[in-house]
């Protein structure tokens, strides 16, 4: 493989639960560009149970699109360097979200301190917590051991003990975990990840390494009672997840070897690129990325205060979609529909989707149903994540989304929606942003690939982003105000380069659009009324330059939080009107 410095073409593989993508980046006129993406259904399920088949199909599709060759037909292996005939690539990166979520047991000392940090760490990747143990646990040791055995974990994360603090309390937990691991069959022993008191590292290694499939350690995620630091542990966890995937899925070993050991979970690399982007945009700038994937809904946010990342496998749009019904109601889903559909029909739709997670809506009603499900999955996920986001990030009101300058949406329900208006409305309804945000669509699910590519070349993500890899959806202004329906809350004026001017008065409950085409730049003047806040404080005006996008400037005066009327006829009419405002 070529040196990481002079790498030109980069093939990025992203292996999802439903789709495998082969993405080509190459240097054109001295700058990295996103060239094309080949896609194929993932092959991680039976009867193949081997992700290489899907990878091979996705690369073949990319070959058809680009006319280039990446696979040696004679050996059927990937060409990991540029050949004399121009075939092959300089470097390969890969990310993965396919496969069942990890079954995680978490252990810590205090339930609301180290155990809580262990929970955040576990849910920062594709994992479901199936058991938790702490010193507050009233169960006797034997019941804890049996609970671990019943949980049948892929991974056990052990936190607890401040660095330099007492370690005796942790000893009992380690011994119980050791006994449970000892009793597990050899081929089902879990990976153990220790992120507690560093002074226990050697002891933990001595006791638990022989009883585990692998033992990983990382710096203490709770070095003191007051301080939580998940960053270093997240990095180690990413590799631990890949180790578990190697045991679950055929082909993971090979892909990891192709990348020189840099295969990483998609959510981890997505976090890396979001962190990178939030730094790139500058201090005080926050970036949010949401992805409605088949395996999980993921929320990743980059703040000055650090990175926040959470995966919600229970709200994935694939075969676990039924779990959405356990966290919301069919009526709540139906509330997002522009037509009258019975709760029974919503229920049947969810179960049909669970049985055939790769299927897609083929009728207009089904499309709206799928989008309504997506809204609810994203709405619940973001509500959960608000509780775990850093408390001191800039926000206009507690309980609402913090201020985000850039919001990126991905996942097929959002990015494959037939119109930009539908994509944007799903995001607005579910996230309910505040202040001023630029909405961007990631139609080819490039974020994880770009995050993966930073390992090869840090210039690649910046340059690829500048060359149209994403689609700009809209600049959205969402005032926060306490005002009666119909009262003026914002005066907006947009002056385009051709001197044409659009002016609008946004009323509480209203929804307005000021078109500004892609490639154009305009001067936007915003004057909040009635003490409305658009990010600088109540009534503070903002003048800014805005770039053109698919929809232009969207003024969302529907209220925060958005409360849908219980009048069914009126609500459906409003939903139709909002959709119509955004072009249908």
């Amino acid at each position: 493989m070529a040196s990481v410095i002079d790498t030109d073409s980069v093939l990025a593989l992203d292996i999802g639960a439903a789709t495998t993508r082969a993405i080509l980046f190459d240097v054109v006129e001295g700058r990295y560009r996103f060239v094309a993406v080949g896609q194929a259904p993932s092959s991680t399920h039976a009867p193949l149970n081997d992700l290489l088949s899907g990878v091979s199909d996705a690369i073949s599709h990319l070959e058809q699109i680009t006319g280039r060759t990446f696979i040696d037909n004679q050996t059927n292996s990937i060409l990991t360097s540029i050949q004399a005939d121009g075939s092959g690539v300089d470097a390969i990166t890969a990310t993965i979200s396919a496969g069942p979520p990890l079954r995680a047991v978490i252990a810590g000392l205090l339930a609301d301190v180290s155990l809580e940090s262990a929970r955040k760490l576990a849910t920062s990747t594709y994992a479901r917590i199936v058991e938790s143990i702490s010193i507050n646990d009233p169960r006797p040791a034997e019941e804890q051991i049996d609970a671990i055995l019943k949980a049948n974990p892929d991974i056990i994360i052990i936190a607890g003990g401040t660095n330099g603090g007492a370690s005796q309390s942790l000893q009992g937990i380690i011994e119980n975990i050791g006994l449970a691991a000892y009793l597990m069959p050899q081929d089902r022993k879990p990976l153990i990840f220790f992120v507690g008191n560093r002074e226990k590292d050697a002891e933990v290694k001595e006791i638990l390494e022989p009883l585990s499939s692998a033992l990983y350690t990382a710096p203490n995620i709770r070095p003191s009672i007051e301080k939580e630091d998940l960053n270093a542990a997240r990095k180690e966890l990413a590799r631990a997840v890949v180790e578990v995937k190697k045991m679950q899925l055929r082909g993971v070993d090979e892909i990891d070897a192709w990348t020189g050991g840099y295969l990483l979970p998609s959510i981890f690399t997505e976090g890396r690129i979001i962190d990178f982007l939030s730094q790139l945009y500058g201090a005080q700038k926050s970036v949010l990325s949401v992805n409605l994937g088949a395996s999980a809904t993921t929320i990743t946010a980059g703040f000055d205060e650090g990175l926040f990342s959470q995966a919600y496998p229970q709200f994935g749009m694939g075969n676990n979609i039924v779990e959405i019904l356990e966290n919301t109601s069919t009526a709540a889903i139906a509330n997002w529909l522009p037509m009258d559909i019975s709760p029974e029909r919503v229920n049947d739709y969810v179960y049909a989707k669970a049985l055939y997670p790769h299927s897609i809506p083929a009728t207009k009603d089904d499309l709206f149903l799928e989008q309504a499900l997506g809204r609810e999955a994203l709405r619940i996920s973001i509500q959960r994540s608000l509780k775990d986001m850093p408390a001191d990030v800039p926000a206009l009101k507690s309980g609402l989304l913090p201020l985000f300058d850039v919001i990126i949406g991905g996942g097929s329900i959002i990015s494959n929606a037939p119109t930009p208006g539908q994509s944007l409305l799903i995001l607005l309804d579910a996230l309910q942003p505040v202040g001023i945000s630029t909405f961007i669509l990631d139609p080819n699910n490039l974020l994880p690939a770009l995050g993966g590519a930073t390992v090869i070349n840090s210039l690649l993500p910046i340059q690829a982003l500048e060359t149209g890899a994403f689609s700009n959806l809209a600049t959205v202004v969402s005032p926060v105000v306490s005002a009666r329906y119909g009262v003026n809350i914002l005066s907006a004026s947009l002056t385009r380069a051709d001197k044409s001017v659009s002016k609008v008065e946004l009323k509480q409950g209203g929804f307005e659009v000021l078109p500004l085409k892609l490639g154009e730049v305009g001067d936007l003047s915003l004057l909040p009324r009635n003490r409305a806040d658009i990010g600088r404080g109540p009534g503070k005006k903002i003048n800014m330059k805005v770039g053109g996008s698919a929809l232009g400037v969207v003024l969302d005066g529907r209220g925060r939080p958005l409360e849908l009327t219980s009048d069914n006829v009126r609500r459906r009419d409003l939903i139709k009107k909002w959709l119509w405002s955004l072009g249908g």
Partner: protein
Amino acid sequence: MLAPVIHQLALTTIVRKRLMPVDGEVIVKLNQKVSASDVIGEASFSQSHHLIDVARMLNIKANQADKMIALKVGEKVEEGTVVASDKGLIPRKIKVQHSGRVVAVGGGQVLIDISKRDYQLKAGISGEVIEIIPKRGAVIQEVGALVQGVWGNGKIARGRLHVLAEQTNAILTPSQLDISLRSLVILAGYCQDAESLKAAADITVRGLILSSLHPSLIGLARKMPYPIIVTDALGKQPMSPTAYKILSTNNQRDNVSLNADFFSRHKGTRPEIVIPLPQNSLPPEPIEIDQFKAGQTVRIVRAPATGAVGTLIDLPAKQQILPNGLRVTAGEVKLENGELLMVPLVNLEVLG
């Protein structure tokens, strides 16, 4: 593009590998004939233990306690067996409180497996054992009809097939389930009420084959003592005509296997109905992997023609735009009534 395949075959050779989750003892022999509910393997897979912390109870160090523990790993113990005792005028004795088997000794502790029941692996299908997988299970082969479903409640049984559903869109009612159906495998239609499931339990049916099941009944269906296999959908839907024809033409056939296994894409498991049929030679085995191609019999799994069966007649190279605006890779399907539909390939499964 790879096509998902669901088997609905009137005559085929069915080969199933049955494995225990952990090493154990395989109790069938090569070439042995088995029935679906026969136990073919047993393993000890305990999740129930009793921990005796001798060191803590005697208030001594772990290494001192280890020297006093009189039990060894593997030893069977009865309630009251002395684990350890200290010395003195009145020695304290620590006794086992539950009978079981010692699985670990060390660190001043003794761990005893107190589970009452071993794991048992059932054959899941009738037929002949054609391969023994040492310590793990066996491969069983049968010749007959095979109908796969979309949902199962995890139970296994066998019995005589009785066709209660007179058509593909029949609805099961409790009053249909009388004592004359006792010990039979019942082919019914859509089940929409809990009473029907309970009535089937009351008359001790051997199993229930449904076209569809109301989603609210999933929890109850899992608790039923007999296997339930849903062939088509969770939510009201008629039975696929192909499945109905295969099953109804085998009315009153004996030794029908119902393995109501969970549908798992990752493991490749599906609930299955197997009807043994007499044959002198082995018919071809079903295909497990296929690519979409013209001429295949396919079933549509989503609206607007959910459950309809037809023939895939064309696979346009270009993406198609659906009436809802989505751009997809699609195939043209000719339904049995002659209607032509452009269907996303991901909404099709091959019947084979």
